[in-house]
Structure formats: structure tokens, C-alpha cells
């Protein structure tokens, strides 16, 4: 059945984060990712600043912080003391700010008069200083896509976070290469009412960003977050969607999740359920002789099995919210995060995992669970198990109010998992190390002069000036190869040939498994120069690219494949020979024989002659043969 998104009151907004191809935002390090082993490791800890949270929470957090430290991987050649938070940030990178202003203009947004850098508290270690620096550059933009207008609420310039490389029990590893790369963040209004349109608009914005020629390309350089809500549900921020194609799926699944959570809420109300009490029971003795590996191991370590009763939750914990994710999975997400436990068991899925029916019965009776109650158990150290149970209770009770506001992480299959409660605007405060920067009229005028064409303007240009078909022009204008195309035009080769090579030949070769990424820009330049100067036939391109992909150079490939154009006199000889050999045909059909003879000649020259030239020679040869006759 089709979901009635309008009826559900679906509202979606998107945030696009695009890395810029400049130096870092607050220092002069290159914005480069490194893959070799890090040369240095610095171990740090973060503490929440004072007003971040209430007293009790803070103590708990301080406790948890003791366990986890952050190991920062770095390279002295490309990471400096600024990323290490051992030197104050430098001034905002001018080039990055100009790109942000450029993007603002392309999106019809109004730049602020003066930008202020803010600190947004993030204490998961992804920023060495414990906050991300961000600055609001413009507001109130819009964009027209497919005849519809969508609002752009804000455009911000911010620093990217460090890359998480791994996690162990005591520490999280981050690589500092990505920390500080400038990001432009574009947030649309909550203007979308169906799952499909957001991706279309995101695609267009992405193309517009690439049109500036100053953004990074490739996997991970553009990331989408979405904000999503339905009536009766609540706003969720879903972070880190790297593939646009996943957006509709994420939205559909989030709607499904919220609808199901609301259904659970209704069901609990109908059953007359009351809030879950935080009453932890030690049920270790139930599992003295268990076959469940996880529990057996835990008890052997001297850990405990703690249980909590969820009154009238029976059947609901096992409810599927998203494919493969149950309400129990959400309870487990919280337990893992706050209790640092490996997971939970709940009675909706038991007996299973080596836990027997007898054990389930004993467990139920030990916590006095009625038939319509569910029981959750956790096996770990006392402190962790208790924190985990506490988190489970908190999450279970949230369901009485429907859907809690959360930041959720997008998973590769389109489902989402809990990251943290949705932060309010309150966690931002001024970065006192960086002075405000007035956006002057002169600066705006300078940026305006350098504004790139919008993609639609470019399509016009490609059709009118370069003679590309409309379809090819459109593909080229939105292509990652746009810049390359414009550079190859300089070779004076025919633009349609260049565009078709980039967008069709190379694409189809890649599909065939040819390693076309080995073809360098210089190779393409060489090929098109040769074609433009008549030294190579355009029919040779495909074979040549294949050969270059295998690691052979251009010249070598041309030699090896015998692709250099044959001498004109030799070509004339072949043409004359073919005409003579087929003189009967020529005589009977006159110039109409051209087509047939063309095929024969081309077969003979095998890519060593340009078709156009052959055509011309053949036409002349036929004409003179007819005159002679």
C-alpha cells in the first residue's frame, strides 16, 4: 500500500555539507586526507564544560570520560598545532569565505553584514578542542528546481571534524587530516512533503556547488543530513548520508519508524500501561547453569545479570520499527551508548541465544513479571549493567510521549540508529579567539564578478557555441568532468567528440571493467591534440584508451596498435585500388557506391585514417573514375 505522506504531515528539510578545495579553515595546512600510517599519536581527554548538563549527569559523564580517551593520529608535515588545539586558530581562510559567499549568491541568499565564529560543543572527540567552529554566512535564499521554488534557510561555513579510524575499550582513534577542512553547510527550509523531491533538490545543489570549481569531489566530500518530522511524531536529525540515492529510503524508513513508535504508544495507553520504574533486579542466579555464551562468560568474569521489568510491554519490544530493527534495538542502542555494554536481551526474543524456556520462566517470576510484561536483561559489570538498565528505562519511558527528538546516524541500508539527543541552539557560544569579519561591499562585488555560470546557462552555451546536442550539453554541464571538458576544448578537437568521449566512451569502458581511472588528463590532452592536428583518427579513441588503461603510454599505444594515421599518398593509393577493384559497382551506381566502398576502405585502414578524409578522397576518386569512363 502506498503511504499517504501528505496525510501523515511529513515535513523534510535537508542540510548539505560540502568540503571546499582550499587550505584549512583556521590554519595553513593542506586539506588532504592521508592514508599512510600516522607518524605521531597524541592522547587527549575532553571534559564537558560546566553548564553543559546538570550536576548528576555531569558526574556520571566525568566517570565515563575516565574510561575513554582520544588518540589523535597526525602527520607533522600536514597537520599543525592548530588542529592539535595547541595553538589558537588563525583568521578565517579568505578563499573559503569567498566560496561561501559565492555559494550564497548562487542560492540567492542574503549575506550577513559581519560574520561571527561560534563554538558548537561536541565532546565525542571528533574535534580536539571539544567544539566545532562554525559561522553563519547568509540567510533567506531560494532555489528553483523543476519549476518549484525551495527556500534556503541558512548557509554556514564550518570546519570538518576529524576522521574516526577505530575504537577500543579505552580509546577512540581519530585522524586529524580531515579536521579543519572548510565545509559549506546549506540548510533548506522544511519544504519537502514527500520522500523523493529532497534528493532531486540535493542533486541540483550539489551540481551548483561543483560549478564553482572550488569544492572537493569524490566519496565523503559531500554529505547530507536530513531533518524529518510527521504530525504527532517529532523532529529527527539524520546525519551523514553520503549517497543521494539513499535519501528517499531513509525518509521512508524514518516515517515507518515514527508511525510504529506512535502505534506502540497508543497500544500501551490502551493496555493501561504506566511508566517503567527504575528498579534493577540482580537475576544472576537464574543463569548459574546457562548455555548462553555471553552470559556464561560474563558470570565467569564475576559480572552480574541485571533485569528490569517493562510493565505491559510484552510483544511491543519485538515490534519491528524498520527492516531488521525492533523497538528492542532502540533500547539496545541506548544501553550500548550509556552503559558501554555489548547488548541486551529481552523476553520478546526469548527463549533463544542459548537461554532456555526454564530460565525465562525463572527470570519472569524473579521480577514478578505478569504475562503482558516484558523483561530486559543485561550481563556486564555492576556499574555498566546498571547504567545500561537506566538507559533502557529512560528510552522505554520516552515512548509514552511518542517519538523523542534525536540526532540519528544513517546506516548503509537506509535505517538509522541513535547518536545523541537533539541538541538545542543553546550549546553555541562565541569563539573569542577569532575577531568578527565585516563583509564589505567591495568583497561582495569581487565575488560577484567571479561568479560562475549557473548550469542552465552553461547548457545554452554548450549548445549554441560548441554545437553539442541538448542532451549531451546537459550531461556535460552537470558532470564531474566539466572542468576537464573545458580544458580539453583548448586542444581544438571537436567539442562533441570530447564530450562524447568523456561521458559515453569512458563510461562504457568503465562498465566493461576497463581501469579507465589510469587515464590521466595529460593522456587525454595528447589524444585530442593528435586528433585535432590530423595525426590520429577519432575511431582510434576507444582502443587507445583501453591500452592506456593497461598502463601503456599514449605514444607506445599508438605504435603498438599501429594507430598513427597512414601517409596521405598511401591512403590515396588504397582508395584508388578499392575504386579500381570495384569499378563495376561504381559504374552502375555512380556516387551512390560511396557508402559501400567507404566500408571497404575503412576496413582496410583499420583506424589509421580519418573517416572524413577517406570520404573526401573516395568521393573525388569516384568522380574522376566516372569522368574517365
Amino acid at each position: 500500500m502506498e503511504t499517504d505522506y501528505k496525510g501523515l504531515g511529513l515535513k523534510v528539510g535537508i542540510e548539505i555539507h560540502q568540503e571546499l578545495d582550499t587550505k584549512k579553515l583556521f590554519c595553513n595546512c593542506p586539506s588532504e586526507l592521508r592514508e599512510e600510517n600516522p607518524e605521531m599519536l597524541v592522547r587527549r581527554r575532553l571534559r564537558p564544560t560546566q553548564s553543559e548538563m546538570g550536576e548528576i549527569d555531569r558526574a556520571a559523564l566525568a566517570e565515563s570520560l575516565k574510561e575513554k580517551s582520544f588518540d589523535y593520529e597526525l602527520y607533522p608535515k600536514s597537520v599543525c598545532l592548530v588542529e592539535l588545539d595547541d595553538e589558537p586558530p588563525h583568521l578565517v581562510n579568505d578563499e573559503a569565505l569567498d566560496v561561501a559567499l559565492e555559494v550564497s549568491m548562487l542560492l540567492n541568499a542574503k549575506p550577513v553584514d559581519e560574520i561571527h565564529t561560534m563554538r558548537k560543543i561536541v565532546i565525542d572527540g571528533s574535534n580536539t578542542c571539544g567544539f566545532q567552529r562554525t559561522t553563519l554566512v547568509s540567510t533567506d535564499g531560494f532555489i528553483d528546481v523543476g519549476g518549484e521554488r525551495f527556500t534556503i534557510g541558512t548557509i554556514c561555513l564550518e570546519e570538518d571534524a576529524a576522521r574516526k579510524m577505530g575504537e577500543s575499550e579505552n580509546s577512540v582513534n581519530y585522524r586529524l587530516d580531515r579536521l579543519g577542512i572548510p565545509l559549506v553547510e546549506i540548510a533548506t527550509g522544511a519544504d519537502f512533503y514527500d520522500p523523493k523531491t529532497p534528493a532531486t533538490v540535493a542533486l541540483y545543489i550539489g551540481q551548483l556547488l561543483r560549478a564553482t570549481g572550488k569544492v572537493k569531489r569524490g566519496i565523503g566530500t559531500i554529505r547530507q543530513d536530513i531533518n524529518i518530522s510527521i504530525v504527532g511524531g517529532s523532529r529527527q536529525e539524520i546525519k551523514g548520508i553520503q549517497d543521494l540515492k539513499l535519501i528517499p529510503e531513509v525518509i521512508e524508513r524514518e516515517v515507518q519508524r515514527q508511525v510504529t513508535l506512535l502505534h506502540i504508544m497508543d497500544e500501551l495507553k490502551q493496555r493501561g500501561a504506566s511508566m517503567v520504574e527504575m528498579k534493577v533486579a540482580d537475576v544472576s542466579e537464574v543463569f548459574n547453569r546457562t548455555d548462553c555464551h555471553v552470559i556464561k562468560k560474563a558470570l565467569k568474569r564475576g559480572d552480574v545479570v541485571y533485569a528490569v521489568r517493562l510493565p505491559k510491554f510484552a510483544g511491543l519490544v519485538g515490534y519491528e520499527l524498520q527492516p531488521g530493527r525492533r523497538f528492542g534495538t532502540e533500547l539496545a542502542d541506548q544501553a550500548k551508548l550509556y552503559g558501554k555494554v555489548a547488548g541486551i536481551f529481552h523476553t520478546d526474543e526469548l527463549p533463544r541465544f542459548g537461554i532456555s524456556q526454564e530460565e525465562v520462566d525463572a527470570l519472569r517470576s524473579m521480577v514478578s513479571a505478569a504475562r503482558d510484561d516484558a523483561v530486559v536483561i543485561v550481563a556486564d559489570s555492576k556499574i555498566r549493567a546498571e547504567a545500561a538498565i537506566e538507559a533502557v528505562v529512560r528510552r522505554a519511558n520516552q515512548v509514552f510521549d511518542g517519538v523523542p527528538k534525536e540526532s540519528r546516524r544513517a546506516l548503509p541500508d537506509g535505517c538509522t540508529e541513535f547518536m545523541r539527543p537533539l541538541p538545542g541552539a543553546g550549546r553555541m557560544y562565541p569563539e573569542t579567539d577569532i575577531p568578527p569579519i565585516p563583509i564589505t561591499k567591495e568583497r561582495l562585488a569581487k565575488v560577484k564578478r567571479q561568479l560562475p555560470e549557473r548550469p542552465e546557462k552553461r547548457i545554452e552555451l554548450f549548445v549554441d557555441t560548441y554545437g553539442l546536442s541538448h542532451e549531451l550539453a546537459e550531461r556535460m554541464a552537470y558532470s564531474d568532468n566539466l572542468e576537464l571538458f573545458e580544458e580539453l576544448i583548448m586542444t581544438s578537437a571537436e567539442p562533441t567528440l570530447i564530450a562524447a568521449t568523456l561521458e559515453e566512451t569512458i563510461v562504457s569502458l568503465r562498465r566493461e571493467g576497463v581501469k579507465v581511472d589510469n587515464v590521466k588528463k595529460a593522456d587525454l590532452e595528447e589524444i585530442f591534440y593528435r586528433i585535432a592536428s590530423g595525426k590520429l583518427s577519432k575511431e582510434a579513441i576507444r582502443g587507445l584508451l583501453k591500452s592506456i588503461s593497461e598502463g601503456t603510454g599514449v605514444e607506445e599505444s599508438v605504435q603498438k596498435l599501429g594507430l598513427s594515421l597512414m601517409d596521405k599518398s598511401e591512403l590515396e593509393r588504397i582508395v584508388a585500388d578499392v575504386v579500381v577493384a570495384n569499378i563495376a559497382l561504381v559504374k552502375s551506381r555512380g556516387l551512390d557506391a560511396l557508402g559501400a566502398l567507404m566500408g571497404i576502405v575503412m576496413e582496410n585502414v583499420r583506424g589509421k585514417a580519418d573517416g572524413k578524409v577517406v570520404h573526401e578522397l573516395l568521393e573525388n576518386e569516384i568522380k574522376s573514375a566516372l569522368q574517365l569512363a
Partner: protein
Amino acid sequence: MSGYRGKSQKILKSASVRVGDRIRVTGAEKTYEGVLMPRTELGDDEHIVVKLENGYNVGVRVRASTKIKLVEKGEPPALKVPKVVVEHDSSKPNVTIIGTGGTIASRVDYRTGAVFPAFTAEEIYSAVPEIQQIANIKVVEVCKVFSEHMTPRLWVKIGKAVAKEINSGATGVVVAHGTDTMGYTAAALSFMLRGLSRPVVLVGSQRSSDRPSSDAALNLISAITVAAKSDIAEVSVVMHGGADDDFCLIHRGTKVRKCHTSRRDTFQSVNDIPLGMVQNREVKVFRDDYNRASLHGKVVVKDRFEPMVALLKVTPGISSNAIFGMVRGRDKGIVLEGTGLGHTPETLFDGIKFATGKGIPVVMTSQCLWGRVDMKVYSTGRDLLQLGVIPGKDMLPEVAWVKLMWALGQTKEKEKISKLMTTNLAGEITQRTRPDAFLRPALPKF
């Protein structure tokens, strides 16, 4: 307080709005609504700052057409301290924290961005709860200055406060101090506090305490640990020992120097190794040549300093005028930061002769910082000794400067000053130059 001046102040005044108020500003293209924020000193007078609903601050330019309207009166920023009641635990050591103006703990008001330093014991407890487990804390505020504004007069105030606490039974004293001149104050306290029987620890932070990555908490916890648990009855500086948030080093107060403008491990022991380290709230001592703590004895404050002492860095071709000026300006002592083993160009000889002729002590140290002054090796050094220059051995230039101020406060006699300056009083002069007390740069791996 609000930081507004000139043009922007005028328009805010005429609209009768104050920082903290919710206002609506109508500019050239757009109207912004939000809370009026304070203006940084770094900003011009042409913009007013508004915090928008989404948490961002923006500056709105003041133009002839700009209109400001009050939407709602707001609360001015204020510090709300969570109530922390900490019972005195007689089984724990008593540590006094002396505040001088460095912020070892603070909290942020997210609404306005104002940063409030923590001054009372309760505020510090609530910012760094771990210290409750180490000691009973008492806080005494002596002054409220950035360390670059510290003066010899304030050293004395701090020294007296330290002595008072120790003499009335404190297990140890921690002095919270800005880092810029912490080394100078440490040296001053080292010479000033005679008969020291308990640890006196200076501590600060390189990254402000309003950020989650601040080094303040680890430094403070470590300093309190040294004050509460160690038997090092000396003035020391306890700060980060490396780039990691792992351990702190305990530097002798007369051998320590701020060596980096911004790193956490900026403090380094020069010409000496540190006294020890603190890791996981445990003190590990590296050596045995330090003054052991005792429960008896009274600290005496020798608090007279001669403020008119100059420190001169010797540069190639430097003119004697520099010293003529000092003498005419009534300086009573001069410390030279000479080149190499303790040299100056001949161009400075006249000046030195002039000063010593007037009975003004001239002490030689080296701008190399590491190593020992030796004026017998080259003829220039021998000439300088002839002119009456006192060799400062392996003292840091600024420590020699503090010491000369203190020596001149104790006596006016030329011979006695020369004796004081060449005698080790508080670890400032070592007898041996340790081979392991020098920079060890990280070499690239091949």
C-alpha cells in the same frame, strides 16, 4: 561591559536597549530578531551583535536607515552556581588555593557567551569534582590580574599569603597563576620564602578553562596532588608534561621557563631535569636532592625586593648608551643576557665600566639559556670579569634578574651581593651540568 562604543553605542542608547534584551534590527535588506550580545574589543563600532534563534551570532551594520526595536527585556548575564556542599573531611590533607587572577576553572553562559571564572571553593569543586577526593580545599584570593600585569609588589602579597597558610597548618599551597610570568613569580617565591616546610605549587593553563579540551583540570588535579601528597617542600611549577593529557611534570621554581607561546607542555626545566611527575594522581619523584617537607618550622618571608633592576639582552654592535640610560634612570642592578659563554661586544665595555664604577652590580647570564656561563675561556670574558661583571653560572636570565632584585633588597654591600649571586639559594645554581637536561627534538624516521 557591553563593549559597544561610538556609532553602535549611540544607536543602542537611543533605542533604550541593553545587552541581554531581545531586539529586532531592521537593516538594509533584512530584519534580524534575537538577543543583543556584548561586543568584542576586537570589533569595530559599526556593527551590533545579535544572537539568532538558531544560536548563531551575526553582526548587523549600523546604517542611517537602521531601526532597532525592543521586543522583550532580558536578564543581564549572571553566574548561577550549582549548589555543591562539601563536608570537611579531617582524614584528608588541607590545601589552600591562592587565586591571583588566572582562571583555573570557569563556566560559560551559553545565552550570552559570557565566561565566568570560578573563584570560590564551591565553584572550583563543581568544575573539577575530582579534587574533593584529594584534599579539603580552601580558596584565598590575593589579586585579580592577568599574569602579564603581575608586579614585584604582588609577588610579596602572594608570598605573605602563602606563608600565612603554611604557618597556620596547610598541608600545601597551590597558587593559581597566569602562565606568562609564572616562572618569574615562582623564582620570586623561591627566594622570598625562607625555611619552607611544605609544598608550594604554581599552576595555570594554556587553553582556557571554558573549553572541553582545557588543560586546566589535569594541571589543577596534579598541582593539588603535589601540594597534598608530596614531600617536596619547595616552590614548584606543575603543568602538562607533554602533548598528551597524561601526566604533569613538577619543575623546580628556579629552573623553569615558559618555552612555547601556546603548547600545553610549554613549561620546561632548563639546565636541570624536573623534580618529578604526577600521573593518575600519584607523585613520582625523579631525584633525592630536594628539600623534604616537615610538619614543623615556620616560614619566614624575606619580602624586600629592589624593583629598579634591568635585564638587557646583548645584541651584536650594541651601544653602551643602553647602559648609560639605565644608570641615569636610577637602576640599581643590571643583568646581562650575554652571547655564548657570557660575552658582550667591546662596544658595551664603557657602559659596564660606568655601571660598576657607580657600584651597580652587573650579572652575566647567557642568551643560550641552556648551559653555564664561563668567562675564563675567551679574552672577552676575562675582560668582562676585569670590569667587575659577576658570572651568573647556570642561572636563567630572568631568574638571575629576580634574584638580583631580591639580593639588593637584602643588602647594599657589593661583596655580599656578589656572594649571594654566585651562591645557590633555592636550586637556581647547580654544581653539575647534567647531560640529560637539554632539548631532544623528534627526528624524522627513515
